[in-house]
């Protein structure tokens, strides 16, 4: 009879390579917290308004709202500097506002007007602003991951010290090109932060119905890209993760993955009845984990009063209403615009 192997003493596994530290929640000053609050509220009210205009038939096609996920983009992008770039998929309105693109330019694009950021030729899913280092706004699931890797490549090539923040969802996380990109990014140590906005549903398919490894922050392991899972409903956790990720990438250690656990309150797009989850599920998240309510509480703890917040609320509503009025009234593109911008040069 073979001798039973001696029991080994359980020891914690030794990491075989350097890993980033567990991020700490960001310690925000009162002013910073107010700023986070404002930004999140701007996104929420903007998106609610967009949903309303869609219902009125002023916005057409596909329109994907960011409501519920605000803390992710606000927390992460608040840590960026002017040299950094941002790219995302089609749920892009919030990211654009945070890049400093005027709300009326975004809203006018949603209504398909000449004053829109893409002259009315892009629509909700295809918006860009090179000036604000926002590179889209891409309608093909996962494409922005390779493109974002290319932006990271250009930062490194130019030596401008910039980092590309490349957002994608839990659905895109299963696309092949994501892994092709991971491989090259780590191989070439590109300055890219891959942000997986895990809002639990890829359209109507939940993460565990679509992902063999549903802990998406581990998806870089076979490429030696470290990943961190983050509470995407907590803006301070998001900002803290951004600090850690930026330090890693800026130190030349290559890309990093942040899996942001978040939730979208609305359907996948305006035309999604969201029958794949219960109302109770959505309501429970709204009640217990709303990112804006969370900051509101923190602000109250810091002595900000209800009436102070009301003032903020009014300011935001005013900005959004003005953007919506502008987007409704500003004219559609001139018919001649149909033929412009197809090519840059004349042949």
């Amino acid at each position: 009879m073979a001798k039973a192997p001696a029991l080994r003493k359980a020891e914690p596994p030794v990491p075989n390579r350097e890993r980033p530290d567990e991020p700490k929640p960001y310690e925000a000053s009162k002013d910073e917290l107010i700023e986070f609050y404002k930004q999140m509220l701007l996104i929420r009210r903007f998106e609610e308004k967009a949903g309303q205009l869609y219902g009125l038939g002023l916005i057409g096609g596909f329109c994907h709202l960011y409501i519920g996920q605000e803390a992710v983009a606000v927390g992460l992008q608040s840590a960026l500097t002017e040299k950094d770039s941002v790219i995302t998929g089609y749920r892009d309105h919030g990211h654009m506002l945070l890049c400093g693109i005027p709300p009326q330019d975004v809203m006018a694009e949603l209504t398909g007007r000449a004053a829109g950021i893409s002259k009315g030729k892009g629509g909700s899913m295809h918006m860009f602003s090179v000036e604000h280092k926002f590179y889209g706004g891409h309608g093909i699931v996962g494409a922005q991951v390779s493109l974002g890797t290319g932006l990271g490549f250009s930062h490194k090539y130019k030596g401008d010290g910039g980092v590309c923040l490349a957002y994608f969802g839990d659905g895109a996380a299963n696309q092949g090109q994501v892994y092709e990109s991971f491989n090259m990014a780590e191989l070439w140590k590109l300055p890219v932060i891959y942000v997986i906005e895990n809002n639990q549903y890829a359209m109507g398919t939940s993460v565990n119905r679509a992902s063999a490894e549903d802990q998406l922050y581990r998806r870089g392991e076979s490429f030696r890209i470290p990943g961190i899972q983050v509470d995407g409903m907590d803006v301070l956790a998001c900002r803290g993760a951004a600090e850690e990720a930026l330090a890693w990438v800026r130190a030349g250690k290559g890309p990093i993955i942040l899996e942001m656990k978040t939730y979208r309150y609305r359907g996948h797009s305006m035309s999604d009845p969201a029958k794949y989850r219960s109302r109770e599920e959505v309501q429970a998240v709204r009640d217990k984990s709303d990112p804006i309510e969370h900051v509101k509480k923190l602000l109250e703890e810091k002595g900000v009063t209800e009436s102070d917040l009301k003032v903020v609320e009014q300011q935001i509503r005013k900005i959004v209403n003005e953007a919506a009025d502008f987007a409704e009234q500003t004219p559609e593109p001139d018919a001649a615009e149909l033929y412009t911008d197809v090519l840059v040069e004349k042949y």
Partner: protein
Amino acid sequence: MPIEIKMPALSPTMEEGTLAKWLVKEGDVVKSGDIMAEIETDKATMEFEAVDEGTIGKILVAEGTDNVKVGTVIATLDGEGEEPSSGERAGDSANAQPKEAQPADKAPPAPESNVPMAAESGTQQLHAAAEQKAKVSDPAIPEGTEMVKITLREALRDAMAEEMRADERVFVIGEEVAQYQGAYKVTQGLLAEFGDKRVIDTPITEYGFAGVGAGAAMGGLRPIVEFMTFNFALQAIDHIINSAAKTNYMSGGQMRCPIVFRGPNGAASRVGAQHSHNFAAWYASVPGLIVIAPYDAADAKGLMKAAIRTDDPVVFLENELLYGRTFEVPKLDDYVLPIGKARIMREGKDVTIVSYSIGVGLALEAAEKLAGEGIDAEVIDLRTLRPLDTETVLASLKKTNRLVIAEENWATCSIASEIQAVCMEQGFDDLDAPVLRVTNEDVPMPYAANLEKLMLVTADKIVAAVKKVTYRG
């Protein structure tokens, strides 16, 4: 009987090569797997292994000999138990004639091979047509310009190198472009000159690196993305179409994607269905893209430079069968051609033959045959497929009133179909006969040499079509 060792074909397009070096000498015993010689093909230096065992009898082609035809007996091998075939046992003769001392034209005539090529295939005809028509010159080149003979592959490389010297933002990325010197040697030498920051080997991940290239272009760089062949670009077509072609429009003209996607396209030699596809019409159907498909080396150079410089995304379709072909290229410091301009390769008055890429060689060959029969054909090389130079085509039609399109592609939804439509819509009153398409057969590319030959467009098929439209058949 000694075994004859023949000059091997070491690439699908190789017809001849240089016997660079013998690694064995007469009297050496070799067994299978031993490396006997180094042979330079049109693409690389290859090692030539022994298959049979025995003793090297006589070395018949000295090292350093150029232009040794495939199938030429280069040495003999005495099998076991056989008498040596020659008395010269000393190995000196094998190494006695270095290249300099023995120019190819003075070398002892290499024994003629009794098997010239295994089988005649269709791509050999395409290849041969390009050889016959290698002497073409562009009227646009200033008179008195010195012309140098280089291969099309060198012309492409020179174009890239010149643009890389001129613009720090230009870089080359793709599979085997750097250390391997290019799967088809097109990027040869670029790594040495520009370093690994600007000449970048990728993993075999077309979708990924096409996206990385497009993203880098959006970020302000000027990538040249090489696809080993355009067959593999199908994996990346999303980025070519959705990311590169549409960006400028979707962004209202503020975000650009100045990128060149390049590589061989169309039928290569005996590589079968998955490696023999012409994608010209696919890309040419997409607004936002520039599509270029040059025929000769001068156009390849001038148009590649233009492609790298333009702010628009370019699909640059090369042809593997033409890479090794030598053409005259003007010796000018900065030879850049306009995109979107066709070229009249041969003037004629009776009929117009329109083509592009490797089809131009066939069209010119057909035109010569037709001249012998008293039909004076005009041959137009489209060069750019989007935007299409319909003006040149229609002007020629106005003159000849008859038009045939020759295309190494399927007929359905082809460039030929497009030219037909243009002639119908805009040249109807000039037509004295229906416009005919001369293309490949409507089947996937077969492997067998005889079937490949049947499948592909030929000069004879062009001649037959021309006779039809001139009512001479």
